[in-house]
């Protein structure tokens, strides 16, 4: 097994200063192994989005440590110079809504990331098509996002998140707009892809339908996480 996954230790995030300061994260510890899909669950205002933004190198934590793969990316300060490149190459994102680029077809939506990383167009597209085949949407490769169903759009979004083979994928309520059947199908895909590409996947969710599918769940409340074993229903 490759040394991938993500580990965070004592991560804190404070908004504001002085009397008005709010501690959104209060020493969060978390570890997700390669090939593992974990759930991150908590009520509104518990700090889920703040944690996701810190993990996604979108906002800077106040203190703590984050190790991505075998690279320390944050240790009481960013340890990488180019956060954009970090997000592009090491972190995959899947959003609540697919947020595909409406003026690019399915293939180019997926191939955009490798292209941004400097890969030749043909090679990036080949890589995208292979991934689309794995997600069973290759027949929609030339379609525009507006021509896809919600489930197809979400699969394309997953393909985009995976295309650069990142060690970690952050999925922000990826099943929220889907019905039970499609939601479980998406979770199955995430599990399959996690295993196939040895990617650690953190799924932030409120969705009761999919919570039983996680083997491990992190609950977050008032900026503090605690771990719990999930049911881990087999989706095969």
């Amino acid at each position, binding site marked *: 097994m490759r040394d991938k996954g993500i580990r965070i230790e004592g991560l804190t995030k404070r908004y504001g200063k002085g009397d008005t300061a709010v501690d959104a994260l209060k020493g969060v510890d978390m570890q997700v192994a390669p090939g593992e899909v974990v759930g991150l669950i908590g009520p509104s205002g518990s700090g889920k989005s703040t944690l996701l933004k810190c993990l996604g190198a979108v906002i800077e934590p106040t203190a703590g440590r984050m190790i991505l793969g075998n690279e320390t990316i944050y240790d009481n300060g960013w340890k990488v110079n180019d956060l954009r490149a970090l997000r592009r190459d090491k972190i995959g994102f899947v959003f609540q809504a697919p947020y595909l680029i409406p003026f*690019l077809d399915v293939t180019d939506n997926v191939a*955009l990331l490798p292209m941004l990383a400097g890969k030749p167009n043909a090679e990036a597209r080949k890589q995208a098509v292979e991934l689309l085949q794995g997600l069973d949407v290759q027949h929609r490769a030339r379609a525009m996002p507006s021509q896809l169903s919600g489930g197809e759009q979400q699969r394309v979004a997953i393909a985009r998140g995976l295309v650069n083979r990142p060690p970690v994928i952050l999925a922000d309520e990826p099943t929220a707009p889907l019905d039970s059947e499609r939601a479980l199908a998406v979770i199955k895909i995430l599990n399959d892809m996690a295993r196939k590409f040895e990617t650690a996947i953190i799924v932030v969710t409120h969705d009761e339908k999919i919570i039983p599918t996680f083997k491990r769940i992190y609950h977050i409340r008032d900026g503090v996480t605690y771990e719990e074993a999930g049911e881990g229903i087999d989706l095969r």
Partner: protein
Amino acid sequence: MISLAGRDIQHAWGKFVFTGVGLGLLIGVTLTMAGVYRGMVDDAKVLLDNSGADLWVVQKDTLGPYAESSSIYDDIWRGVRSIPGVARVANVTYLTMQVQQGERDVRAMVTGVTAGEPGLPGWPPQLVAGRQITRGHYEAVADIASGFQLGDRIQIRRNEYTVVGLTRRMVSSSGDPMIFIPLRDAQEAQFLKDNDAIRQQRRRTSENPAFNRPGVPGLLDAVIASQSTNASVNAVLVQIKPGQNAQTIAESIRRWKRLTVYTRSQMEEILVGKLIATSSKQIGMFLVILAIVSAAIVAFIIYTLTLGKIREIAVLKLIGTRNRTIAGLIMQQAIALGVIGFVVGKITATLWAPVFPKYVLLQPLDSVIGFITVIIICVLASIIAIRAALKVDPAEAIGG
């Protein structure tokens, strides 16, 4: 790397083309305004070119005959012709007036030329139809912009004239078509009063004891006769012999004839620098305002298009797209919009220019300058949208 701007335009080409057409009409108006100015300058120059003159001899201390009124005696030409270096001279009159044809009238510059001597300065150099004036009275050569045709009967003051020839691009500095008539008729049209005024003048003269003295028979008749003659013209046009210096000859005429003389370059300066200066400043102001309005519209369009893509921009930033790629997307779209607008503007200006009542001259150089200006405006206008896009927080793509 694929062109994100190109793909976006391809995806929403209808919106882009429609917006570009709207912008293009505005650019078309701007190009037309520039063409109107060029047309005015060209009208001024063509008036000088068509006169065939190297020197304009006019009333002392006036800017005549085009920019100010000028009146000199019609026998001055004899003395001017005797000056060394002068090849040909001709009297000429210019009078801008309404020329009648039946119920309609046309504003025209009626030009009096010495009858029967085509080729002299002041004569139309070439005709597009008909013939030159051959008779001493009641024949006219008209520019086709007047709308007159061969054989038409036109009314100038109290006389009727037959149009015997047609010219093209013979216009005044105001763009009014020129109508050439024999000099004697033109002098009469310009200087001869109507019958009532003549009768009244004769009565006043006869009642003046200075002119109607009992002991001086014939004095009153002589005075009245002198009041009825038309011995004035507006200018004498001079052609100099090849190899002669216009400045030297002009100086000689000034010195010996005590009149004002303008060379071609001086006359051009009067027409372009003084006669149409206010109009050109007016058009210049319009051009500046149109440029500002165009810039504001481009900025608004690009800004609106960018605001419509805020979520996509947030996603692009989140997945690691560089700022310059996002800026490039917006700027390329602004430039594409400018190019579409310019092409539409150029086509529309070219199509509607001939319909304008005055000459609109669309010069290639103006088009090049216009194109560069449009692109610069688009680039500058896109900066506002780029600033907005670069301020987008990638965290907006993540909920919460």
